[in-house]
């Protein structure tokens, strides 16, 4: 299966009378996109703002980040936004250097993760995350009175998908600046030279320690409750079949670092054997079952010699990752894990002594100070104890977001990602 991802590089974004791309500049009809996004009944009204690289500007309360995408001649984000259909083949347009940023204007369950996630458009944060170096269209959707926080969150995520498709549709008739080919044949024909090790990827996309909402759309529109490990084509993940419930940005499914790395080296120093998609369940027997089946699929169906595995979620999923590692090694597969570190002093508690190949995308609770900014987008204040970012007591008052903020590196959107998008490593001091 072959996916041609046509990249359209955008050098500037502005509001104008008609949405179009001309001379690498994306012009957005502000009224039209606002009207489009306001169709969710749970929204009272929607505002959109632009934030540009280099500006003294901070985007706050970031819920999700997406790359604008448009599939030529078939549904986008199937099951979540448009009718169920298959993705990962054919032609897709991707706008590069532009992001859709969803913000949360409501507190409640599921919102805690976003309450102090920021994107700074200049200053030290841009060394950590690429998001501040791109032109960001920020969605600010205000809920109707009495809105249910979960309904609101799902509506914001849907609005984000809608905006991503709306923007990239402008590139429908544009010849891409470059085209990335993602192609992997059916498993039965996916044979490389004998000397290249076959590498698979086991991908728990969600941890049910925080269950998905009944109406949540994670994979092809499914809420993935009761999801069993299965083989998927890596292109489906890159092309809009998958979005995260929490703990990771959809941008990193669309630009999945492990999948892209395996593609990059496919045929060079490894052979990309394929992807096993799974979830982290909550009971021991389910965890054991998913780890066993995932390892078996990687070994006996993909025919892998080695696997990379990553996780999404809290510390509970560390156990799933370690089980996947051990079950793989028991079957004779070599394994390496990417696992995020949270606190400087706690370490990863669930590392069995025989697990010896772990890579860290960085430490989230590493202190950083972000200087004051002239403009804040996505609200005015954020919930933070500016003297002690470790204070997560839900009753702490909000502080003005334009001032100097003392928070964690992990609060910078895009700085540390569990699927391995990061510029960081760690050392023991």
């Amino acid at each position, binding site marked *: 299966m072959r996916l041609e991802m046509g990249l359209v590089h955008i050098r500037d974004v502005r509001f104008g009378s008609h949405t179009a791309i001309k001379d690498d500049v994306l012009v957005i009809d502000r009224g039209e996109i606002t009207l489009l996004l306001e169709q969710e009944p749970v929204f009272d009204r929607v505002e959109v703002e632009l934030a540009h690289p280099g500006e003294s500007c901070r985007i706050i309360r970031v819920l999700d980040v997406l790359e604008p995408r448009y599939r030529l001649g078939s549904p986008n984000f199937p099951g979540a936004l448009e009718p169920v259909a298959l993705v990962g083949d054919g032609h897709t347009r991707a706008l590069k250097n532009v992001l859709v940023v969803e913000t949360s204007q409501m507190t409640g369950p599921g919102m805690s993760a976003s309450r102090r996630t920021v994107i700074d458009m200049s200053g030290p944060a841009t060394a950590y995350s690429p998001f501040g170096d791109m032109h960001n269209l920020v969605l600010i959707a205000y809920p109707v009175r009495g809105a249910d926080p979960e309904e609101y969150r799902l509506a914001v995520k849907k609005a984000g998908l809608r905006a991503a498709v709306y923007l990239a549709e402008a590139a429908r008739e544009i010849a891409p600046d470059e085209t990335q080919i993602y192609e992997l044949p059916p498993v039965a024909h996916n044979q490389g030279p004998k000397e290249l090790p076959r590498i698979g990827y086991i991908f728990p996309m969600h941890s049910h320690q925080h269950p998905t909402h009944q109406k949540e759309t994670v994979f092809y529109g499914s809420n993935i409750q009761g999801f069993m490990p299965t083989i998927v084509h890596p292109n489906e993940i890159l092309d809009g079949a998958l979005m995260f419930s929490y703990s990771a940005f959809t941008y990193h499914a669309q630009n999945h670092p492990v999948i892209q790395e395996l593609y990059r080296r496919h045929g060079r120093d490894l052979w990309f054997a394929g992807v096993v998609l799974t979830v982290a369940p909550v009971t021991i027997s389910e965890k054991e079952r998913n780890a066993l089946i995932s390892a078996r699929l990687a070994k006996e169906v993909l025919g892998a010699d080695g696997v990379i595995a990553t996780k999404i979620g809290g*510390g509970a999923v560390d156990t799933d990752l370690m089980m996947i590692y051990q079950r793989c090694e028991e079957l004779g597969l*070599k394994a390496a894990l990417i696992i995020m570190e949270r606190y400087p002093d706690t*370490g990863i508690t669930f590392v069995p002594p025989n697990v010896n190949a772990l890579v*860290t995308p960085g430490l989230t609770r590493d202190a950083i100070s972000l200087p004051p900014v002239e403009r804040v987008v996505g609200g005015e204040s954020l919930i933070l104890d500016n003297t002690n970012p470790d204070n997560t007591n839900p009753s702490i008052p909000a502080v003005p977001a334009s001032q100097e903020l003392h928070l964690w590196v992990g609060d910078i959107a895009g700085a540390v990602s569990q699927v391995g998008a990061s510029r960081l490593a760690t050392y*023991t001091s």
Partner: protein
Amino acid sequence: MGKKVRVIHYLNQFFAQVGGEEKGGAGPGVKKGAVGPGRVLQQALGDRGEVVATLFCGDNYFAENQEKATEKLLQYAALSDPDLLIAGPAFKAGRYGVACGAICRAAQERLRIAAVSGMDEENAGTALFRKSVYIINSGSSAARMAPILQRMSALGIKLAQGAPVGKPEEEGYIPRGIKRNEFAAKPPAERAVDMLLAKIRGDPFKTEISAPEFHPIKPAKPIRDLASAVIALVTDGGLVPEGNPQRMEPGRPTRFTALAVDGLDRLDPDKFDVNHSGFDTAYANQDPHRLVPLDVARDLEREGVFRKLHDTILATGGAHAAVENATRIGRGMAERLKTEGVDGVILTST
């Protein structure tokens, strides 16, 4: 270059030239300026800092009167209005090392000044204080006094001036076990694939995260006669009284709470909350027995399976606990239950 850093130097009785082993009982004292190795320290500091006073204490005295000695030494130190404390180096002298670590930590916490010590990795003071105090790895030989004091003063000046501290191998300190970020040459996905390929080839590779070291715990002897035993309920699932009046942490716990259940047959959801950042607490909040089985424990008590259910439940919120804190909380719980005559514990986790 900022202003000259005011340095105080801590030495034991031997290096402070009070006397040898026989003077180990000497109490805390202070001398003006540099003494003994302090002159080498002054050379190492150059014009960046000045040794304004030397504190000293006998090793035995300090070991036997740690609180009193620390108190007195801090009083002496404060008189000199210091910016930095340099303690030792103690090399492999254990009591001296412990004193250096203790006085450094106290100076950091109470005088709010920078502190650096120097010890051998095997020194008892290293194990006790490496997490809270920068300790330059001095090795065991006192012949290396000058180069070690060079490193101690270089790191001390950085700390006193708030300059960024480099890695252990650059600065020469013993790793504290505290992780920090650094920018990497390659992204994590590429490093993971490199590591996996090296592993498949059988080439050497190094994990970026090591397994934690746990000290084995000897299990208690089984309860011989359950029918005469007192049993307590304990949880790390974050049970708190309604409204969490003691503001127990939902994660990163530093303490535990005791909930009185004397005379209670059930945990009323209106009177108890579950406060924990690591799992979905909705179901436990609906019915706290899903977390702590007081209801069935009462049944068992009534049936005489055990003699008595203890009248308090101990609880903490165990998400992301630092191992040291978890160990301390666990020990605190165990000591309390032991004093209160409890024979066994049912520990429910999440």
